[in-house]
């Protein structure tokens, strides 16, 4: 496992999580799957990073957590984006766009 998969840059996971729950609240497992599906399994979310990140984000007020029923009627913890989280998402997305194009440009020129 784990070959040719880029490590997530610091801060990127936060951004991905916010993006994953931007439209609807999801539990941790769903978030992991959503990210993997959206990136065609290029980005693999490690549980060891996911859950601490979720709890940190909750502490920072980016997301809210509440217990609800999962699709198979089990008790699961759902995460929902907050207004702060939404603002952060927009700002970071922009930043990320600049950053990504900057890096791309750099890499292209050196090629």
């Amino acid at each position, binding site marked *: *496992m784990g070959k040719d998969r880029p490590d997530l840059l610091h801060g990127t996971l936060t951004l991905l999580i916010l993006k994953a729950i931007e439209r609807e609240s999801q*539990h*941790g*497992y769903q978030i992991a799957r959503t990210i993997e599906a959206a990136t065609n399994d290029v980005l693999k979310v*490690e*549980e*060891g990073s996911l*859950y*601490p990140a979720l*709890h*940190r984000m909750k*502490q920072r007020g980016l997301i809210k957590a509440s217990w609800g029923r*999962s699709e*198979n009627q*089990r*008790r*699961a*913890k759902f995460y929902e984006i907050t207004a702060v989280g939404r603002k952060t998402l927009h700002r970071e997305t922009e930043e990320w766009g600049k950053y990504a194009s900057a890096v791309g440009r750099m890499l292209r020129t050196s090629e």
Partner: protein
Amino acid sequence: MHFARRWWNQLVASLIQQDIDEELQFHIEMLVRAGVRAGLDEPTARRRALGRFGSYVRIRRACSSVYGIAVPGSINRGALMQNLWQDARYALRNIVRQPTFSVVAISTLGVGIAASTVMFSAVNSTVLNPIPFTDGDRMARVWHESPSGGMRFSPDPVSVNAWRERATTVEELATWGSDAMLVRTGGEPQQVTVGVASVELFPFLGIQPVIGRAFQPADTVEGQNRVVILAERHWQRHYNRDREIIGQTVTLNDEPHTVIGIAPRLADSFFPANRSSQLDYAFLIPAANRHATMVKLRSGVTTVQTEHELGQIHAQIEVETGTPNGWTVDVSRPIDTVSSSLKVGLWVLLGAVGFVLLVACINVANMLLVRGVTRSHELALRQSLGAGTPRMVRQLLVESAFITTAAAVLALALTGPALHLLRTLAPQGLAALRGVRFDTPVLVTAIGITTVITLAFGLVPLTQVRRLNLAALFNSGRSGHSTPMRTGLRNILVALEVAMATVLFVGAGLMMRTLMELSQHDPGFQATNLITFGIHLPESRYPNEPTREGFIRDVRDRIGALPAVQRMAVGGIGTVGVMESEVQVEGASEPAPSRLVMVDLVSDGFFETLGMHIRGRGFTRAEINTKAKGVVVVNETFERTYFGGESAVGQRYRAGNEGSWITIVGVVSDVHLSGMLQESETLQIYQPYHTWNLNTRPFVIRTTGDPRSVLSLLKGAIWTIDNDLPLRNVEVATQMLSDAIARPRFNAIVMTAFALAGLLLATVGVYTVVSMAQQYRQHELGVRVALGATGRDTMRLMLGYGMKPVLVGAVLGLITAVGLSRFMSTLLFEVTPVDPATYVVVTLTLTLTALTASFLPARRAQRVDPVAVLRCQ
């Protein structure tokens, strides 16, 4: 607090961790599910899921650390909390399931803690820490002392002013005092004692008025000084804490005084409440200077240094003013002035209550031991099922924490009423006790006691589990033969209980005997139907001796004419004045050294009115009318001291080696209000009253019936002469006698209560031991009966179980009592600390009580049916 916070933090942490656990478990479940959907069998799917998930513990710790929760290693904190919670519920269930045990244990400990808290309060606020003010430990009273050290006076204002200006060892100085003032209640003039506070007093004590303001220098200026501060208790009782009182006026000495503030209760230690006259010290008035003087020493300065400095300043003043009087200065802390017999009494009572608390603890320990028989089965079982020792220790601690916490709560609830009872019990003679306060150190002590008890008791059943062999436990089944060790321990505890109860009982017995001796004591006069009061003749209306003499004659005529009055005379019971004097008997070469002599100023008929035994004669009406000088009546102690074995009647003496000769015309018996040791050697002389020219005169009146019912007639007779004269210090002689032995009575009552509590507890202890023996020896008893033991044999056997520790304990207790009672000797009167009668009565009482306690379960043992018991086996 610290504990509570940790508990709370642990609780929060455990909730968060549960949350995290559930979330992670859900994730793993979802992974497993995905695996199964992909066609794996469940175990494989689970294995893969777990493998993929990585280190559960690490993830969990990483999540927890977000909340600042440290998870050391792999110990499951959540589980620990759950355990604690379980323990708490388990403990509560246990307590509820055994109501008798719980109620007895909680109430025993609660009462024990409350009693010791109250006694500690008493000692704390009278002996250890008598000044409840900031920097109280640096405060000291200042006195002038007579050359022989026998008399102390409040210092004169000249010295006080000099000290205030010159003393460097003194940080602050304040004075206070009291005045008699006239208050009219329902038209009747009433003499009340009014507190006088110097302007410095409130700041000195660091107290603030509840509302309003304290005195200011301007308040002492003549014409602006009609202001008054009310005591908080008076404000509460008469004005219902009405804040509008500020600015209103009250009438003192027929003049309006403006209320400017309410003094806090703390001021009561200076201006104490008086039960018989509620208006005493209800009012405080301002003054620039008063006689009673207190100083706050600079920190690091000793009373000796201050005494030295103030003495020097006083000597300078004497030189400057040219009025040497030879007085020295005494600076002493209030703790030094609490009378030593009060101190000893309180220490003894504190010791006694300590014993009661110990007996209570032993009793609860004993009950825990008994209960431990059943508990140890359960604990051994749990141990075999894997409960570790720490876990069981914790469980037991939680359980006893519940019991002791409940006991502490009960104790705190009881303390208030108990303190109130103590204050009520403490009579006039024990003013110090009426100021007893419940304060923080006492509370801390109570909590300390509770904690120690918790720790000590928590582990009692565990020591037994350790001894229990599991195999033996299961072999013995539920009948649970008690091992010899445990029986031995219980017997030791009962013996200890009995020993302490014995000591308490001996103490109480000795004090009761003292009280009996004291109340049968001959006071030297006949107290029945005797009443005394004083009348103060104001200078304004009675400016000179003839006017005062005229008034006294009128009073004697009018009151003497009342049919309810047998006799009356001028003079007081006890002492009016005191002087220090050398006495030179006629014919002796030089005067005897200076000693204190009490002086009573009396009229003709005084000794007859009091019913005193007299050799020689009293004063005649002619001697009084002609203002005769040089005649005196002395008491027997005076006669014995200066005339050896000879009669003093007709002899002469003079004060010092000059002055005129005084003829002793009569010798009367000593007057002892209480008969306590301290006053037995009082030198007393009686002089015709006009030899000292005073504004205030006491009267004694013998009535035909209850003097209280005659009082209104007496008042009426006086008010027909002068409508504005209040009676002061109205006292009925029998009450004076009763008050005089208030302290020994208080000691005896409290000690007896303690002894009874100790006896009751010890009885419960004996009963428990014998009942347990009866229960656990059913089998043995059955066999004995089957083998031909009679009911009497069984009874003897069972009583033996109970009585053995009792007798050992009683002997131990008697020996201890002999040792300890020495400390009480100053509290005893005509009873030796090893009074045989007391010891015999105590031993009999205890033995009989213990016998009764053993008898009931022994009776049950007698009714053992051998067939039933043996079949059971």
